[in-house]
C-alpha cells in the first residue's frame, strides 16, 4: 500500500481531471483526512478543481481571487485555456506558477499552497496563498539587549526574510529557497549579500544543504547538526540567533544566514570562537562600554570553565597556592562535610543544572517559586545539613553567573561539558590535570573549522582583522573586510565536513 502511494507520488499529473483528483485524494488520505478540500467549479469554460488544506491556505483569498475570478472570467478568447492562461488572465494571485510534478504539487499543498487542477491539461497551477496563523513579530526572548532593536525572528519564513530585507535594504541580498528532507520536507532559505559573501562559501553551504538526505528536518537546529563541520566537537561551529539585526550584521560582514520555515532562529556561518562572545549590545554601545562588556563575558567564560575545577585542584592538591587565612576558612567550613570535595562539587553542580533545567521547563507562573526554592531554601538547607560547605555554594553560584554571561546558549552548554572534564581531571591530577584539559581543549578548538574556515581565526591563523575580536575598539577603526568575506584573503578548505 505504502509502495503504491510512493508510486502515485512519482511522475507527473495526467490530462484527465477525475484521475488527477482521485490520485490526490489517495495521496492526501482525504477519505479519513477531513482537512483536505477538493472544490470543483468552472473557470473560463473548463472544469477545474482547487485542492487545499483547510487552515493552511487562506480561504478568503480562495473565495475572492480564485472562485470569484473564475466565475467572472469569460470563455477564452486568445488561445487554449491551460494553466498558463489561468495565471495570465484569470487568477488574481501574485505568486503562482505552473507545476506538473505530483510530488511538488503535493508538497506545496502540504505547506499551505493551493493547487488548481484543470481538465484536459497536464499542468496544474500552484498558488502561494498560505494563510495559516503565525505569531506576530515580538520582542526577543533569549537574546535581550539593553540598547538596540528589540524585535526577533518568528516562525514564519516569509516574515523572517522580510525582516532581514528591512535591515539590509540592498538589491544584492539574495534569498535562495530550497526544500530539505526526503519524506517531510522543510523549506529553508540561504540568505547572503552578493557583494560581501564569498561565492565558495555560499557554494559549499548550498552543497551541504542539498546533500541532506534525512527523511525529515525539524527546524534550524537539525539543519545545523546535519551540515556542521565537526559533529563530535563540544562547541557549535554555527551560530543561532533570534535577532534580525544580528543576522543582518552577519550578512553585511559576508557571512551566510540560513532560515527555515517554523524556526524563529537564523543560522549564521561561517563563525569563529569570538563570534560566540559577541552580542548586539557591543555594536550599539560606545566602544569603551562594548570593550568592558566583552571583557566581562570573557572573564565569565573562563570562570565557567575553570573555577570549580580550580577549586577542587587547589583544595585537594595545591594548598600552598591558597592564602593561609582563606585556607583556614575553607578547612573550617569543610570540617563537618562528610563528602570528598569532588563529590561535594558534583552534587552542587548537578543540583544547579537541575534547577536550571527545571526553571526552563516550568510554567512562568510558578517560576519565581522555583527560584526561591532552588536558590534560597535548598542552598541554605544543604549548608545547614553539612552536605556542602558555604564556600562551595559561592563557587557554584559564581560559576553559574559566569555561564550566564556567555551570550550563546549552545556555546554555554558546551562550556558546561568542558567544565565537567576540568572538574574530574582537576580532582585526579590537580593543576596538572587542569593544564592537560586546557591544552586538549585548545588543541580541539584549533582543529575545528566552520564551513572550512579555522574556528580561531583571525588569531590563529593570523589574518589582518578589525580591532573587534576580543576587545572592541572604536568603530571608525573597523574598516577592514572580514577575513571570510569576498574581499578577505582566507579561503575555505575544500570538502570539509558536509551533510550527513
Amino acid at each position, binding site marked *: 500500500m505504502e509502495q503504491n502511494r510512493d508510486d502515485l507520488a512519482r511522475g507527473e499529473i495526467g490530462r484527465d481531471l477525475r484521475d488527477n483528483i482521485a490520485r490526490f485524494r489517495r495521496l492526501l488520505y482525504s477519505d479519513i483526512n477531513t482537512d483536505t478540500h477538493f472544490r470543483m467549479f468552472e473557470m473560463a469554460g473548463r472544469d477545474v478543481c482547487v485542492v487545499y488544506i483547510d487552515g493552511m491556505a487562506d480561504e478568503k483569498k480562495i473565495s475572492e481571487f480564485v472562485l470569484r475570478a473564475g466565475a467572472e472570467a469569460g470563455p477564452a478568447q486568445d488561445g487554449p485555456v491551460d494553466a498558463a492562461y489561468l495565471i495570465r488572465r484569470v487568477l488574481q494571485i501574485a505568486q503562482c506558477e505552473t507545476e506538473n510534478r505530483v510530488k511538488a504539487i503535493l508538497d506545496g499543498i502540504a505547506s499551505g499552497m493551493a493547487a488548481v487542477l484543470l481538465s484536459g491539461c497536464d499542468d496544474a497551477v500552484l498558488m502561494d496563498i498560505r494563510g495559516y496563523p503565525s505569531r506576530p513579530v515580538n520582542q526577543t526572548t533569549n537574546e535581550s539587549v539593553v540598547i538596540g532593536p528589540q524585535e526577533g525572528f518568528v516562525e514564519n519564513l516569509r516574515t523572517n526574510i522580510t525582516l532581514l530585507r528591512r535591515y539590509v535594504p540592498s538589491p544584492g541580498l539574495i534569498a535562495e529557497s530550497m526544500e530539505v528532507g526526503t519524506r517531510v520536507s522543510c523549506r529553508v532559505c540561504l540568505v547572503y549579500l552578493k557583494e560581501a559573501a564569498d561565492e565558495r562559501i555560499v557554494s559549499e553551504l548550498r552543497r551541504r544543504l542539498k546533500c541532506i538526505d534525512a527523511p525529515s528536518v525539524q527546524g534550524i537546529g537539525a539543519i545545523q547538526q546535519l551540515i556542521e563541520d565537526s559533529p563530535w566537537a563540544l562547541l557549535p561551529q554555527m551560530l543561532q540567533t533570534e535577532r534580525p539585526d544580528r543576522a543582518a550584521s552577519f550578512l553585511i560582514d559576508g557571512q551566510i544566514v540560513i532560515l527555515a520555515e517554523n524556526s524563529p532562529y537564523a543560522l549564521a556561518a561561517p563563525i569563529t570562537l569570538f563570534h560566540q562572545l559577541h552580542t548586539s549590545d557591543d555594536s550599539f554601545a560606545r566602544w569603551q562600554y562594548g570593550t568592558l562588556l566583552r571583557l566581562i563575558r570573557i572573564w565569565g567564560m573562563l570562570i565557567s570553565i575553570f573555577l570549580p575545577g580550580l577549586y577542587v585542584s587547589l*583544595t585537594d592538591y595545591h*594548598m*600552598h597556592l591558597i592564602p593561609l587565612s582563606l585556607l*583556614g576558612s575553607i578547612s573550617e567550613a569543610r570540617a563537618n562535610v562528610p563528602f570528598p570535595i569532588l563529590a561535594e562539587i558534583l552534587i552542587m553542580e548537578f543540583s544547579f543544572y537541575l534547577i536550571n533545567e527545571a526553571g526552563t521547563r516550568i510554567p512562568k507562573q510558578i517560576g519565581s517559586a522555583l527560584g526561591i526554592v532552588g536558590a534560597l531554601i535548598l542552598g541554605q538547607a544543604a549548608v545547614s545539613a553539612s552536605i556542602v560547605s558555604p564556600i562551595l555554594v559561592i563557587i557554584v553560584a559564581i560559576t553559574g553567573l559566569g555561564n550566564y554571561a556567555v551570550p550563546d546558549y549552545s556555546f554555554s552548554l558546551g562550556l558546561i561539558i568542558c567544565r565537567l572534564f576540568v572538574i574530574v581531571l582537576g580532582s585526579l591530577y590537580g593543576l596538572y590535570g587542569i593544564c592537560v584539559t586546557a591544552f586538549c581543549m585548545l588543541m580541539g578548538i584549533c582543529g575545528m573549522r566552520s564551513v572550512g574556515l579555522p574556528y580561531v581565526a583571525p588569531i590563529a591563523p593570523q589574518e589582518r582583522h578589525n580591532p573587534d575580536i576580543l576587545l572592541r575598539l572604536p568603530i571608525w577603526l573597523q574598516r577592514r573586510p572580514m577575513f571570510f568575506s569576498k574581499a578577505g584573503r582566507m579561503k575555505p578548505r575544500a570538502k570539509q565536513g558536509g551533510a550527513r
Partner: protein
Amino acid sequence: MRGCIAAAVLVAVGMSLSACSPSMEVENQAYVLVMGIDRTENGEIELTIRIPKIGQSESSNGGGKDEASPYLTYAVRAGSYARAIDALQVMVPRELNLSHIKLIIASERIAGRSDFRELVDQIAETPHLYNTARFIVCEGSAGDYAKRMDSVIGTRLSAEIDAWFDHCIQQGFIPDSCFADVYYASNSLYSDPTAVWGFMDSGEADRAASLNLDSPMRRDAVMESPSQLFLSGAAVFRGGTLALRLDNGETQLLNLALNQTRSISVALAGKSYELTRAHRSKKSVSSEKNNPRVELEISLTCEDQITNGQASAIEAALTDSLLALVRKCQSSKVDPFGFAELAAGRFLTTGEWIDYNWRSRFAQAEPRIVVHAKSSAVP
C-alpha cells in the same frame, strides 16, 4: 579503532582513579605554621611545630597544654632532621602539611654549628616545604620560642607573624630576608645572608645584651609583643653557619646600606632627628693594588630645620657607626652589604672570582663611608 581508543581512555581513567583515591582533603591536613629547630645536649635534633586547630571538632589534648589556645604544639627528638619529620608524621593526628610554614626558628646553638648548612639544605629539600617561610635565629631554645607564638593580631597566627615582621622591617630593625634567601645565598658565590635575630624576654640582663642602648639610633627601638617575643637585629651567616650577630642599630644601618629601609632615627645631644633616604645608597668596589677598596655613599634628608653644624654632627655620627659596622663585619670575614656582587661583576668567570677569595680580600679592604645629611624643610 574507535572502540580501541574508548577502551584505552577507560583504562586510563580507571588507573588514574585508582591511583589518586587517597586524596588529600583540605580539612584532613595539619598545617604547620611555625617550626622550631634545636639540637639537644646529646646531639639530637629537636623539632617543635605549631598547628592551628580546625573547626570546633578538634580537641586540644593532642599535645598542646593550653586548652584555650587555638593551636596544637608537638615536639619530637630524633637523630636526624628526616627522622624527626617522620616522627612528627606519626605523632600528628592528621596529614602533616609543611607547605604553609610561616616561620622557621633555629636556635643560636644549632645555627652556630658547622653542620648547620647541611641542615638548611635538608629543610629546603623537604617535600612540599616550599621554603617561603621567614627565618629567625633565636637565643635560647627554639622550641620555647615557637611555643610562645600565639595569636595577637586578628585571629590567625599567620596574620600576626606577617604583620609583626612587616612592621619590624619597615622600622629597619630586622633584615628583610626569608629562609630561601639564607638557603640560596649560603650556596652561592655572593654576599653573606642575614636572618632575623629573635629573643625571649627572659630577663633584663638578656634584653640589655640584645639591644644596643648606646647606639646613636633610637633607644627605645624594641618591638615588644604580649607573648614576650622580640625581633631585633640580624644574624649574619658565613658559609651557612652563624658567624656574627648585629644589634638593632647596626641592622638599621645595614638596611639603610641595602636600601631596605627609607628612614632612620638618630639621637644626638638629647635630640632625636628623623632622617629619610634622599637617593638609593651607592656602593662601589675599586681595586687598589691587591686589596680592594669598598665605598658606601648615603644621602639623607631631615624633615626638620637643622643647622650646618647639626648636619655635620649627624654625618659624623652615622659615618662612624657605619664604619664601625663595616669593620665589625670585616673582622668576622662576612659581607652582608652586597659588595661581593659588585666585585664579582669585574670578573669574567666564577673560577677567577673564587680564586680572588673575596672573604679574605674584604677583610683587608679599606672602607670609605660618605654620608650626606641636609634639611628638606624650607627655612
